[in-house]
C-alpha cells in the first residue's frame, strides 16, 4: 500500500502526475525542480523484503528522502520513484536481482518535499541458506558526468 503525495508537504512550485508502479499500484506524485545535492562521504542504505517492502533504512536514507523512519518502514521502495525515471530501468533492476545478480544504475529519486536527488545505486539479493530473503540497496554519490548522460538518455526510454 502506498499513499498519494500530499501537496502540503511540497516545497516550491510543483507539477503533478500519476505513476504506475511495479506491482500494479498507482500513486499521485507532486514534483519540483529543486535538487538536493548528495552528501559527500555518505552511503544511503536500505533493505527490503522480497516484494520490495522496506524493512530497514539508515539515517542518510531518512535525511535525503525527507520521510520519517516510521513512514518508510513497511512502505514499498517505489515511494522514491520519480516521474523522470523510465519504468524500463526498474524492470531491468527486478529482472537482474531476481536472477540472484547484482544491479547497478543511476537513479533520480523523489523526495517527500517534491525535490529530487541523484544516486548511483547498487542492489544485491540477500541470500540466506540458499533462499532470497530480501534485497539490500546501497546508494552513493554519482559522478556529475554520468548524471548528465542519464538526463539525456532517460527521456528517450519512455
Amino acid at each position, binding site marked *: 500500500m502506498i499513499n498519494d503525495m500530499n501537496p502540503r508537504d511540497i516545497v516550491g512550485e510543483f507539477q503533478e502526475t500519476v505513476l504506475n508502479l511495479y506491482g500494479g499500484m498507482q500513486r499521485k506524485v507532486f514534483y519540483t525542480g529543486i535538487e538536493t545535492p*548528495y552528501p*559527500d*562521504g*555518505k*552511503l544511503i*542504505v536500505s*533493505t527490503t523484503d522480497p516484494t520490495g517492502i522496506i524493512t530497514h533504512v*539508515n539515517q*542518510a536514507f531518512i535525511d535525503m528522502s525527507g520521510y520519517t523512519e516510521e513512514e518508510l518502514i513497511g512502505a514499498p521502495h517505489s515511494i522514491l520513484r520519480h516521474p523522470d525515471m523510465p519504468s524500463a530501468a526498474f524492470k531491468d533492476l527486478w529482472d537482474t536481482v531476481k536472477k540472484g545478480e*547484482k544491479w547497478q544504475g543511476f537513479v533520480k529519486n523523489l523526495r517527500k518535499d517534491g525535490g529530487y536527488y541523484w544516486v*548511483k545505486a*547498487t*542492489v*544485491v539479493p*540477500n541470500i*540466506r541458506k540458499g533462499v532470497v530473503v530480501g534485497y*539490500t*540497496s*546501497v546508494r*552513493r*554519490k*554519482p*559522478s*556529475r*558526468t*554520468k548524471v548528465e548522460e542519464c538526463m539525456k538518455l532517460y527521456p528517450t526510454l519512455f
Partner: protein
Amino acid sequence: MSFLFTVSPDFTPDRLSGWYIFNTWLQKQTGVAIHLEMYSGFNSQREAIRQDEVNLIYVNPYDAAMLVREKGFLPLAKPVGESDEAIIAVSASNPVSDVAELAPGIRLAFTDDPDVKMMGMIMLEPGDLDADNMQSMPCDTYVQVAKHLLRGEADVGIFLAEAYDGVSEMIKKQLKILVRSQISVIHHSLMIGPGLLDKREQFQQCLLGMTEDEKGRGVLESLGFKAWEKVDDEEMEFMIDLMDTLTI
C-alpha cells in the same frame, strides 16, 4: 593441539604487543592453546586461510565474506564504537577543494588496506576517477602516504580515518581533507572458524565479560578498545551484503 589465531595485517603497529597480551589472556580464560601468528601482509594471511590453517581471526571486513561463505567462519564480536572510515586528503597547498575538481591522471597514494582503499575509490568516483585513469602509488604505511603528499610526489592520498587522525598536528596542518566517509557499519570483527566452532559461546562470553574485571579491562586498553560487543550471524551477513554492493 594448538589453534592458530591471526590479526588482519592492517592493525595499528602500536597495538602489536596488545594482541599478544590478548592472546595470552584468551588462552587463560578459555583453557584452549592458541598460537598467535602475525602475517606481514594480506597475501600471506589469505594463503594461510586458503590452506585452512587459521582457526580464529580479527578480520578486515573485506575478507569477512570469504571467511563466512567459503570457510565456514562465524562472527564472535566487534570492538564497541569502532568502525572503518576513510579519508581523501591532498596537500594543504593544493587549490582543489572538491573531489569533482580533480583531473584524470592524478597520482594516488594508498596502502594495501582493502576496505579503506575500496571506500577511498568510491569517494573518488564523483570526480570520474577510477583505477584506469589515475597513477597508483602503493605505500606500506599511512605515514608514507602523507609524506608523498607533502613532498608533492602524490596528488591525492587515501587514509584510514583513525590513522589520519593519529598523525602529528604538524603534518595535519600541511594536509587538507576533501572527503571523510561516514559509513558507520563497516567494521573489523573477531571471527571463529572450523576447529573451534563448538567453543563459540564460551569465547563470546569471555569477550563480553572482559570489562567486568580489572585484568580484562587492562587487556582491552592494550588493544585500544573500550569493550567487545556481540556480532550475530545476521549482522555479519548484512555487512557482507553491503560490502558486496561496494565492490566496484
